[in-house]
């Protein structure tokens, strides 16, 4: 296995709910409640090799976007560290986060929110590389034209504003903006979730072409198991802040191990299977404000035993390159 380009080492992220002045006075007088802490990501470790694409899958509140943002240097971890090419991606400066590398770039879900409506798209794409001296400002125009061509847009569109483009085209612009920084690692947060099915395929094909041509490494965040299967080499399944299963894509889909992964696969509707009897996972996704004890999945798990309530199962190797966090693999749930 080639050396890891990205090393996520025992990373946790907690968000503390900011209390307003009334609550702070109440707390001083001993009447208020304690500050509430959301444990968005808890003790996650993951390495990504150069040229590899790892899919992060999970439902709302599982921490996949928070993890993606920490990798992209938007948040700093509360504990642990994230090293890109052996150097931290970001550091805290007081209350602010300072990003330390331009080699990691992020593509967001909503291309309507991620582009400034008042700036011509050519200027949006050129802003980063000019500011970081990746390209000189008088060469910026041809640089942008080149990039737009690369993502399948007519280079003459660079004088236009975002509202003149469809959702799929805007996502291409967002990709061009990320590529303009000559990144080695792309963090894609639900890049096709807001697109129509026929446009989704276009953007996924573009991503796969770029990945091959530019030898990109990627973190691909999605709730769509089909999309992730298509573009990822390995997949990490997350549930309430923790990775519960990590495996090469083909093995994970052929033979899921963790009860949550299996249940997730069961509840996904699929084209071509025909009318099916859903066997949905019982219960709600618990709030990350008050996660269950032990294994976070135990209240919804059909195999849960007393040990699952007591002990958090570690993410343990269950085969070559395969990991799962379940007591069923390590001596049972009693």
């Amino acid at each position: 296995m080639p050396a890891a380009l990205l090393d996520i080492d025992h990373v946790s992220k907690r968000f503390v709910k900011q209390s307003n002045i009334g609550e702070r006075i109440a707390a001083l007088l001993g009447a208020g409640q304690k500050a509430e802490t959301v444990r968005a990501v808890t003790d996650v470790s993951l390495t990504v090799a150069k040229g590899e694409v790892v899919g992060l899958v999970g439902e709302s509140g599982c921490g996949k976007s928070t993890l993606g943002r920490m990798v992209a240097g938007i948040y700093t971890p509360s504990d642990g560290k994230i090293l890109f090419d052996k150097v931290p991606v970001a550091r805290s400066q007081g209350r602010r986060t300072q990003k330390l590398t331009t080699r990691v770039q992020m593509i967001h879900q909503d291309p309507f929110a991620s582009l400034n409506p008042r700036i011509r798209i050519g200027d949006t794409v050129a802003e980063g590389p000019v500011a970081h001296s990746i390209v000189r400002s008088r060469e910026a125009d041809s640089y942008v034209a080149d990039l737009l061509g690369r993502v399948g847009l007519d280079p003459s569109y660079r004088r236009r504003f975002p509202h003149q483009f469809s959702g799929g085209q805007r996502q291409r612009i967002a990709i061009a903006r990320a590529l303009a920084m000559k990144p080695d690692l792309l963090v894609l947060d639900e890049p096709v979730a807001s697109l129509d099915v026929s446009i989704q395929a276009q953007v996924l094909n573009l991503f796969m072409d770029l990945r091959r041509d530019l030898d990109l490494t990627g973190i691909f965040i999605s709730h769509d198991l089909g999309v992730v299967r298509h573009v990822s080499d390995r997949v990490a399944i997350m549930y309430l802040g923790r990775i519960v299963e990590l495996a090469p894509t083909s093995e994970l889909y052929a033979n899921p191990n963790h009860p949550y992964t299996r249940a997730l696969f069961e509840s996904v509707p699929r084209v071509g299977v025909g009318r099916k009897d859903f066997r949905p996972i019982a219960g709600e996704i618990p709030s990350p404000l008050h996660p269950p004890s032990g294994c976070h999945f135990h209240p919804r798990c059909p195999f849960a035993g007393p040990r699952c309530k007591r002990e958090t199962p570690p993410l343990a190797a269950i085969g070559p390159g395969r990991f799962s966090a379940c007591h069923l693999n390590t001596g049972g749930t009693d």
Partner: protein
Amino acid sequence: MSDAVLRVKDLQTQFQTRAGVLKAVDGVSFEVGRGRILGLVGESGSGKSVTGYSILGLIEPPGRIVGGEVILNGKDLTRLKGEAMRQVRGAQIAMVFQDPMMTLNPVLKIGTQMIAAVRAHDNVSRKVARGRARDALAKVGIPSPEERLDAYPHQLSGGMRQRVAIAIALLHSPAVIIADEPTTALDVSIQGQILAEVRRLADETGTAFVWVTHDLAVVSSLADDICVMYAGRVVESGPAADVIASPRHPYTAGLLASVPAEHEPGTKLPQVPGSAPSLANLPPGCAFAPRCAKAGPACTTTPPVQHFEHGRTALCHYPIEPVSCQPLSLTSTTYRSAS
């Protein structure tokens, strides 16, 4: 089908705008039988939601229903006005929206809202109404329904709110429920729960559903029948299993082929080129022709509705030949060979 509870015939809804007349719904026809689920599928701008709104008479100016009929229990809903329509809406036909907060008032308790909904159509005491509200919540699988009646919407999760919205739609045992992307905003595991409940409700209560969605996977696992819409028209219809296994319209085939889950990972996905046309600027003839690989000289004229076996239709000059002779009960493997 003669036992249809809802028949939509040649429905036309138009919007008067500065860019001209937009034909959002342009001659849509379909039927739904008792206890059946019809999947109305299309991408953004295909007119699927406007069709749903038109059925319930929820189109406001500059929009207008300019033609066609919506027959529910022998009555044409497009001819009903004001109070007469209000008598029908909520009692005989109801709607579930994508965002349950469009249905729920955030400052009123669930119970208050449901009791008002019961008493809007039936002259019963608050106590009786409360009982019916509680039963409706239990019917959609909400645990401890009595306590939920005293909860405010913000105290419930997204999935629970959508169940409440479905429960409100069910209060008067309507013949038809129109559901507009009701599970799109929900997580997969919660979506699975709701789809299971809806299938059970349709089978047990005989309520018919028109399930408006962009998600082919949802339709294929939930619906009995399917209508695929493109630029305001139904381009293909028929039993869901048949249509999914062997699409006859090139657009349906293109949509199905571009679903990643059905392909070898990492391979190039077959894509439909271009993007959906603007309704203000539709190409003459078949609106899909500029994106269609099978388009020929005839496609500049309006395509005819072609009829096939099992009541299937396709709006196309050059429909795709069926892939096999046993169209029913196909498995995923047979579908893969089809694409």
